[in-house]
């Protein structure tokens, strides 16, 4: 109980001390063939800010956050992450991907490597960390996501919730400045959603900059500084969770919220 009170206190403090923008998207456009999937998307995320992106399926929210670490390439507009503009230049791409961690809907753990190897691979290869140190860091984060005892197992031996927690730990092992979550709980069985959300809440409260595509409105209310609502490739509305959920301005958001609430 006191734990919750404390963390809420921390949350409000954090909200007051937001730093300069670390992600800036300026009128970003993207097409798949003739399909216009991102329309003039402009979004600025401050350091330590936690943004939840929601919207109906096909609204472009996954595409948008995948543009932030250039898993998707935008065709128009400008994206600047941590002071580096995203271009075809491979060196700038490497710099950015080192600073941006990502968690996928389908976990995407490497099935041929153990949990520990999954976590140490990138620090050793990309950050050139000595193996012993990388393993220590990995065990640290595995402990933080509450599964250090699974370190020697293979991903296939873990439950979905455990795998997703490993995926979060794996991304954290690179010590990223920004974490992207692409529907991290959508592929999970209901009873496993909470364990993943708990880890994400803990991470949010530690002051990580987070952009999170999710339909978990409880999570959004609890940790988000800002909720962004997307529909048909554009940002329709954004604001604090309270304002967005209790006083939606646009019909599209009202419709979306009614569908979400009916679904729950």
């Amino acid at each position, binding site marked *: 109980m006191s734990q919750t009170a404390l963390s809420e206190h921390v949350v409000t403090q954090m909200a007051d001390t937001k730093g300069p923008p670390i992600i800036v998207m300026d009128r970003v456009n993207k097409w798949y063939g003739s399909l216009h999937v991102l329309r003039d998307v402009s979004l600025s995320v401050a350091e330590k800010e936690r943004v939840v992106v929601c919207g109906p399926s096909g609204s472009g929210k996954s595409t948008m956050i995948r543009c932030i*670490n250039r*898993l998707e390439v935008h065709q128009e507009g400008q994206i600047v992450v941590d002071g580096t503009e995203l271009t075809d230049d491979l060196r700038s791409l*490497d710099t950015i*991907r*080192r600073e*941006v*961690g*990502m968690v*996928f809907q*389908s976990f*995407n*753990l*490497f*099935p*041929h490597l153990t949990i520990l190897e999954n976590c140490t*691979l*990138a620090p050793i*290869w*990309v950050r050139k960390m000595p193996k012993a140190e990388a393993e220590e860091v990995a065990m640290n984060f595995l402990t933080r996501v509450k599964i250090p005892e699974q370190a020697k197992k*293979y*991903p*296939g*031996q873990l439950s979905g919730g455990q795998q997703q927690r490993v*995926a979060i730990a*794996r*991304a954290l092992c*690179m010590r990223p400045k920004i974490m992207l979550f692409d529907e991290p709980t959508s592929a999970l069985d209901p009873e496993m959603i909470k364990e993943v959300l708990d880890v994400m809440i803990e991470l949010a409260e530690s002051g990580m900059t987070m952009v999170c595509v999710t339909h978990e409105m409880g999570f959004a209310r609890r940790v988000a500084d800002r909720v962004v609502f997307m529909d048909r490739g554009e940002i329709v509305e954004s604001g604090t969770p309270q304002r967005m959920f209790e006083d939606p301005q646009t019909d599209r958001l009202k419709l979306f919220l009614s569908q979400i609430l009916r679904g729950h």
Partner: protein
Amino acid sequence: MSQTVASADPIAIAATREKPPSNVAGPWAWARANLFGSWWSTAVTLVLGYLILRFASSFVSWALVHAVWTVPYDAEGRPDNAACQNAKGIGACWAVITDKYRLILFGRYPYDEQWRPAVCVVLFIGLYVVSAMRRFWRKELALIWVGTLVVIGVLMWGGVLGLPLVTEDFWGGLPLTLILATFGLAFAFPLAILVALGRRSTTLPAVKMLCVVYVELIRGVPLVALLFMASVMFPLFLPEGVNIDKLLRAQIAIILFAGAYLAEVVRAGLQALPKGQGEAADALGLSYWQKTSSIILPQALRLVIPPLVNTFIGFFKDTSLVLIIGLFDLLYMGKIALSDPPWQSFSTEVYLMLAVIYIAFCFAMSKYSRGLERELGRTHRR
């Protein structure tokens, strides 16, 4: 232990139940389920059993009981095949093998130096065995390969360390087959991986084009034609005085041919891999080669072990096609052994021996691949 005591203890009950009753397991139950399940399957079992027994007994009688193992030699060292002629149709004439096995196995390699190719065969087999063991799968294995192949080269050619020089023209038999197959696949496999990766490249259209053209061109031509081109046409394009050895040309043709086929197998594996694997590696900041070597290839190659081994086995046997350009591989040496007048009519025995050698290598490959699939499947479950 009495029944009542046992039933009082649940663990003891479990122990007694561990072994199923003999009517659901054991060889007798297996036979009843699979061989005598119905009157129809009983009839098939009996008929086939009779045929198999008859064939086996006549084969044993031919191959062992009435076989002629050796024949006397006359004063000039010519074999006297009278015993074999008499036994023809009744017993096998293994004397042809005892007389010719060194010619078949080592070709025209100088008789007194044939210990060298023999050692090479042993080295090759040792190399295969070491490479097959997973605990040797580290970087040092590449050094072992290079070292062994150098030793094999020195042994075959000689000319150093007091070994008389033996040029490639005198190589033949099993060592030649193993050289063509081993060097062929050892070079074709890395080539295939590069071509498969190139064919899937999205950022290098020229490389992709080159890989597509290579695969389609080579695949569209029979190996026999490629070997002919290598042996007859290729020298015409070379400048005066430059002469690339026939064995090397055949070897290159085999590498190019196997490379194209293996590339398509590897590409199938790359395509079967979920897209998320590459994306996760990208998102972690791994470079293209880091991603490919540590995430993509280990998984993609595991997926295609069965077709890979299938292609390996196919190419091991296809090396026998080099006989059409006059290289004396194992199969061709069998034919040459049979051209000796006393043995002309005993081809069955010689071809049986060759078949046993080919089967031994191919069966070892397929058995190993099944074991490997099982082993990797156990640790890499998804």
